[in-house]
C-alpha cells in the first residue's frame, strides 16, 4: 500500500519531481488546449508557410502555413489520450490474465505463459506494423495494435506477484472464512500486487508514447490533419535542411515526455520497492 513514507521517499528524488512537474504541465496543456493554443490547428495560410520561429509564431509554421505551436499543443492532447487508453487497456487485460494464470496455475497458466513467450519473441513494433497493415491505419487501430503487445508485461508481472501472494497466510485465512476465488482475487491478490504494476504503468507510458509517435512517423498512426507529434515529425522531414523547426519541436516534445515518465517510473520504483524498505 502506498503510504506517506513512500510519498516522502518519492519527493526526495529530484529527477522524479522534475518528471512529475513536466507531466503535470503537459497534462494541463492537453486539457486546456482549446484555451491556450494561439491559432486554429487546421487553418491553412499558404502565405504564411514555412516561417521560422518568431513572436507571432513561437515555433514557426509548417508547409501549409499552420502554426506549429498550436499543433504541438493539440498533439499533446492526442498523444496523452492515446497513451492513456493503451495503458488502461493493457494493464486491465494483462493484470486480469496474470492474476488468473498465477492463481489457478496448472494448464491454464502453462498455455497463457507460453502464448506470452511466443508474442514476446516478436519485435513489438513489427507486430504492430503487421496488425495495422491488416486492419488499416487510424487512431483506434493504433491503440489496438500497441495494446496487443503491451499487455504481455503486465500479465507477467501480475502473475509473478500472484504466485507469491496466493501462498500467503491471509489468502488461506480468506479461504477459511469462506471467501470465493473471485473475491480473493479482487480484494486480496489485486491490491497486494499493485505496487509493481503502478511502476510498470508509468514506465510503459513512456514507451507507449514512443510507439505511438513511431507509428505516426511511419504514417500508420493518427492520420492528417489530426495533429500528432510523430506525424508532424514525418511531415517535417522533407524540409529538415531548410526548416528544422518543423521536426525539432515535435521531436523535443516526444523526448521530454518520455523522459519525464521514465523519471517518474524510476522514482516510484525506488520509493515502493519493498526490498529497499527492509534494508532501512
Amino acid at each position, binding site marked *: *500500500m502506498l503510504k506517506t513514507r513512500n510519498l516522502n521517499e518519492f519527493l526526495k528524488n529530484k529527477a522524479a519531481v522534475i518528471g512529475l512537474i513536466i507531466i503535470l504541465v503537459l497534462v494541463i496543456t492537453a486539457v486546456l488546449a482549446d484555451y491556450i493554443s494561439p491559432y486554429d490547428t487546421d487553418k491553412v495560410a499558404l502565405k504564411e508557410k514555412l516561417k521560422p520561429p518568431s513572436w507571432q509564431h513561437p515555433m514557426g509554421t509548417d508547409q501549409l502555413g499552420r502554426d506549429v505551436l498550436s499543433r504541438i499543443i493539440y498533439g499533446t492532447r492526442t498523444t496523452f489520450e492515446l497513451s492513456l487508453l493503451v495503458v488502461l487497456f493493457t494493464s486491465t487485460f494483462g493484470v486480469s490474465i496474470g492474476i488468473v494464470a498465477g492463481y489457478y496455475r496448472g494448464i491454464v497458466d502453462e498455455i497463457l505463459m507460453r502464448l506470452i513467450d511466443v508474442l514476446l519473441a516478436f519485435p513489438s513494433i513489427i507486430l504492430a506494423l503487421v496488425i495495422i497493415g491488416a486492419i488499416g491505419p487510424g487512431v483506434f487501430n493504433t491503440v489496438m495494435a500497441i495494446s496487443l503487445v503491451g499487455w504481455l508485461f503486465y500479465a507477467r508481472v501480475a502473475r509473478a506477484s500472484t504466485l507469491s501472494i496466493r501462498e500467503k497466510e*491471509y489468502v*488461506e485465512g*480468506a479461504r*477459511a472464512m*469462506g*471467501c470465493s476465488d473471485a473475491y480473493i482475487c479482487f*480484494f486480496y491478490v489485486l*491490491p497486494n500486487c499493485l505496487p509493481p504494476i503502478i511502476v510498470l504503468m508509468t514506465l510503459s507510458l513512456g514507451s507507449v508514447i514512443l510507439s505511438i509517435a513511431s507509428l505516426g512517423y511511419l504514417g500508420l498512426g493518427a492520420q492528417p490533419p489530426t495533429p500528432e507529434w510523430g506525424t508532424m515529425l514525418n511531415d517535417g522531414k522533407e524540409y529538415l535542411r531548410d526548416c528544422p523547426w518543423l521536426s525539432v519541436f515535435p521531436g523535443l516534445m516526444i523526448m521530454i515526455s518520455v523522459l519525464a515518465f521514465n523519471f517518474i517510473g524510476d522514482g516510484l520504483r525506488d520509493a515502493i520497492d519493498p526490498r529497499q524498505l527492509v534494508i532501512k
Partner: protein
Amino acid sequence: MSILSVEHLESQFVTEDGIVKAVDDVSFDIEENETLGLVGESGCGKTVLALSILRLLSENTKTSGIIKYRGRDLLQLEEDDLMAIRGKEIAQIFQNPLSSLNPVLTVGFQISEPFMRHQGLKRNAAKIKAVEMLERVRIPSPEERAKEYPHEFSGGMRQRAMIAMGLACKPSLIIADEPTRGLDVTIQAQVVELIKELIKDSGASMLIITHDLSLAAELCDKIAVMYSGEILEYAGIQDFFRKPAHPYSECFLESLPARGMKPIRGISPSLINPPPGCRFCPRCDHARDECKTTHPRLMKVKDGQYARCHLYA
C-alpha cells in the same frame, strides 16, 4: 452426537523424495461444547491435520478418509457448499496473526467480511458489527482501531483481531492453530483468558493445535498427542497430566520447564518411509523387540484413555 468426527484421515504430499504421509490414519471425535487439544512437536503433522478439515491444503495433497461435521462428510462436499460452512459454522484462527491479515485492507474491513458473506449484511451494517466484535475482544477505542491497517496493531491486538474475525459468525466449531504463537507470555495469558471466556459464552466446540502443553492444560477437556503423523495417545485432560499412558507422552511432559525440562533423545523419524514398527521406538526407553517390527494399534488403557503402545496389549 459428536459435532466433528474424523475417521481414518490421511493426508499425503507427493515430493521428489517420495510420498510424505503428514497425517496417517488419524481418528478422533469432538463432542458439542468440548475442547480438544492436539499437541505434538514441530513437524508432526498438526497443522496439516487442521488444514485438511476445511480442505485448505494445496492441490498436490491427497486427503482421504471421512471428516463428518454434523453428519456431513466435508471431504465429499462440493466446493460451494464448503464455502458456506467455512467461516460460518467452522472457523479457523491461524497461527501467525501478522501474515494472516491482509496488509492492504483495514482491520475493520476484514472483520466485516464474514458478516457480509454469511449473513448478507450491507457494508455499513457489517462495519458496525465489526466494531462490536473488536470491542468484544477488548480492543481499546474499537471505532478508530477498525479504520487502521494490520501493521498499526501490536502483536497481541492482531491476534485478538484474528479471534474476532473467527468468532464473527458465531461458529459452532473453531479450529485454532497455535493461537498464542509469537506472543510474549503476558499477552499469551490475556489471549488464553479471552479465548476461554468467548468459548464459554458462545458454547462452541474447539480444536486447539499447539505444542504448548500449558496452553492445552488451560483450555482443553481432552488431549490427543500426535507424533510423526499418528495419534499416539488420546486422553481426558486430568488423566493425561496425572498419568500419561504412552512413553512419548511421559517424555513430552517431562520436557516441560516445570517438570525438569528433560530433552527427548534422538529426533523424530522422517515422514517418508517411517520405520515399520512403533514410530517412537528408537527414542523409547521401554522399547522391546516387537516394537521394532510390529506397528501397534491404538489400545485401550482405561475408559476414555487410549495409547498406541505394545505396553497395553
